[in-house]
C-alpha cells in the first residue's frame, strides 16, 4: 500500500523533473530562434512584396502596409524577364560564378599537391600563412587595393608599360573579378585540400616506394585517389553557388562603364531597390531578388541532398 503510493509520487516527481529539464532546453533555444524568426523568417514572409504594389507608408507598419497593398500576381516578374538586358545579367551571373568555382577548385588542388611535395615543413607553413592573408580581409579593403593597382597610373600599368583602364574595360573586367577572387580564396582552398591529403595513410606511400613507384606515380595513384572523395564532395556542394557571383566584390569594383560584363542579379536588385527611385522600386527589386533566391535554393538543396544521399555527407 505504502509502497505503491511512494512509487506513484516518485513517478509524478520524475515527470515533473523531466518537464523542468526539457523547459530549460527550450529556454536555451529561445533567443536564437527569436532572432532567426525576426531576421530570417519575417523577411521571407516579406517577399510577398514581389507580388503586390507595395507602397511604404510612414505611419503603418511594414506587414500591415504589405498585406493592404494591391495584389498584382506575376506582373513584376514579367517586367524583369522582358528587360532587354535580362539574359545578359543572367549570363554574367552564372558565367562569373562558374568560372570562379572551377578555377578555384582546380588551383586549390594543384596548390595543395605542390605544397605537399615541399620537403621543408617550415617553408610549407610559411607559404600557407602568406596565401591565407587576403582571405581574412573584406572586399572594401581588397577592392581599394585592387582599384589602386589597376588604375590608369597604377603599378600594373607602370610595370607593363601599358595604359589600360582595366576596371572600365569590358574586355578586362570579368578577368579581374575572377582573378582577384581566386587570389582571395586560393589559400583557403589549398589548406582545405592539404588537410585532406594529411589524412591519407602514410603506409600507402611506403608500400609504393618499396614497390619502386616514383613521386609522380605516388601522386597519381595514392594522393589523388585519396582526396578524390573530398574533391567530389566540394564540387557537388559548390554547385549550390552557381548564382553567387560575388555581390560585395562587384559592388566595390564596378562602375557604369562595365555594367555590360559585370552586372549580376544581386547588383541589379540592389540598384533597383535602393538607388533608382520609382513607385514600384521595392516590389521590383524584391521580385528580382526572389527570382535569384529560388533558383539558388533549388541548386543548394539539390546539391546537399545529392551529397547526403550518394556521398554520405551530413551537415550535423
Amino acid at each position, binding site marked *: 500500500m505504502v509502497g505503491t503510493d511512494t512509487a506513484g509520487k516518485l513517478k509524478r516527481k520524475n515527470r515533473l523533473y523531466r518537464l523542468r529539464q526539457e523547459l530549460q532546453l*527550450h529556454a536555451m533555444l529561445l533567443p536564437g530562434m527569436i532572432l*532567426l524568426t525576426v*531576421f530570417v523568417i519575417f523577411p521571407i514572409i516579406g517577399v510577398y512584396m514581389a507580388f503586390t504594389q507595395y507602397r511604404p507608408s510612414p505611419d503603418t507598419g511594414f506587414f500591415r502596409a504589405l498585406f493592404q497593398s494591391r495584389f498584382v500576381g506575376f506582373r513584376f516578374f514579367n517586367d524583369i524577364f522582358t528587360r532587354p538586358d535580362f539574359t545578359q545579367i543572367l549570363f554574367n551571373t552564372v558565367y562569373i560564378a562558374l568560372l570562379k568555382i572551377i578555377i578555384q577548385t582546380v588551383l586549390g588542388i594543384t596548390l595543395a599537391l605542390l605544397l605537399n611535395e615541399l620537403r621543408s615543413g617550415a617553408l610549407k607553413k610559411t*607559404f600557407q600563412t602568406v596565401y*591565407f592573408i587576403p582571405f581574412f580581409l573584406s572586399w572594401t*579593403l581588397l577592392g581599394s587595393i585592387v582599384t589602386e593597382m589597376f588604375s590608369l597610373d597604377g603599378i600594373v600599368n607602370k610595370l607593363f608599360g601599358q595604359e589600360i583602364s582595366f576596371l572600365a574595360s569590358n574586355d578586362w573586367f570579368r578577368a579581374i573579378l575572377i582573378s582577384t577572387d581566386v587570389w582571395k580564396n586560393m589559400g583557403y582552398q589549398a589548406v582545405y585540400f592539404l*588537410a585532406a591529403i594529411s589524412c591519407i595513410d602514410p603506409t600507402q606511400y611506403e608500400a609504393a616506394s618499396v614497390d619502386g613507384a616514383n613521386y609522380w606515380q605516388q601522386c597519381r595513384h595514392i594522393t589523388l585517389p585519396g582526396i578524390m572523395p573530398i574533391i567530389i564532395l566540394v564540387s557537388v556542394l559548390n554547385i549550390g553557388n552557381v548564382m553567387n557571383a560575388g555581390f560585395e566584390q562587384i559592388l566595390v569594383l564596378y562602375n557604369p562603364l562595365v555594367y555590360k560584363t559585370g552586372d549580376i542579379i544581386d547588383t541589379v536588385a540592389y540598384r533597383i531597390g535602393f538607388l533608382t527611385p520609382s513607385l514600384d522600386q521595392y516590389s521590383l527589386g524584391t521580385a528580382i531578388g526572389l527570382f535569384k533566391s529560388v533558383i539558388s535554393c533549388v541548386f543548394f538543396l539539390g546539391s546537399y541532398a545529392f551529397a547526403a544521399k550518394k556521398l554520405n555527407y551530413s551537415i550535423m
Partner: protein
Amino acid sequence: MKVTVRKKNKKPLHYKLSIPRRIFLTVNTLLLLSLALLCAFPFLNLLALSFSESNAAGMVTVIPKNFTLNAYTYLINKPQFFSAFWMSIKRAVLGTALALAVMVLAAYPLSLTGERLHGRRVYIAICITSMFFSGGLIPTFMVIKSLGLYNKIWALVLPQAMNCWSMILLINFFRKVPAELKESAKIEGAGHFRILLNIVVPSSTASIATVVLLTAIQHWNSWFDGYIYMSSENYPLQTYIYNLLDTLKALQQNTNKTAEDLELLKTLGDSTLRSAQVFIAIIPIMLVYPMAQKYFIKGLLLGAVKE
C-alpha cells in the same frame, strides 16, 4: 608499432635525390615562392604607398618614395575616421559577445541526441531555412527598418547574432564532449544550464575560440549592412572606406565638376591617403591573424575529416 616503422622509413634530408627530382623541387619552390609574393606584394605596396608623398602611385613598389608621415598625421586630425574606427570596434565587441551567447545556448540543446525535446524538428527546420534561403535585400531592409533599428548599432549586431553555420561547428564540438562527464553531473543533480556552463563550455574552448574569432572578423569586415542601415556619421570603418571609394568613382565619372567637386577629388584621389586608411583597417585583422589562421584550420579540419 606503426610509429617505429614510419621512423625507420623516413628519409633523412641528405637522402640522395635523382636529378629530375631536384629540378622539380627547385622549380616547385620557386613557383610557390612567386605565388607567395603575389599574395604579399599588394600589401607591401600599400604600406609603402601610405608612407610616400602624395600621388606617388605607380612609382612606388615596396619602398616608400620620399618617406613622409603626412597621410597619417592628416588622419590623426580627422575625427570622422576615428569615430568610424570606434564604431567598428563597438560592433565587433558587442556583436561577438552577443553572438557567442546566443549560439552557445542554442547549440547545446541541439547537440543532445538522447534527450527529449519537443519541437526539435521545428527548430532544425528554422535553422536549415536560414542556411539555404533568404528573403533578400529589400524585405530584410524593410523588416529591420520597421523594427525601428535604422541607424542603431543593433541593426548591425542582431541580424548576425545567430549564424547557423557557426552554430553547427559548435554542435559538432559539443557532441565530442564525453557523455560520462555530463551523466555524472546529472546524477549529482545539475540542470542543463549548469552542465553547459561547467562541463560543456570548458571542454570545448577550441571551438568557442574558433567561433569568436570568425564572428569578430566577420563583424570587422562587414560593410554593406553599415552602408544601408546607418547614416553617414555612424558608418563603421569599412563602410566609411567603401564610401570614400564610391564617392571617388562617382566624381571621376562626373563630366562637369564644380570647384567643390575638384577640391574633394583632390583629397579623395590622393592614393597615399587612401592607402593609409586601408592599412589602418587591416591592422586589427593582422593582430588576430596568427590565432585566426590556427583555429580556422582546426575548424576546417574538423569539417574535412568528419567521418
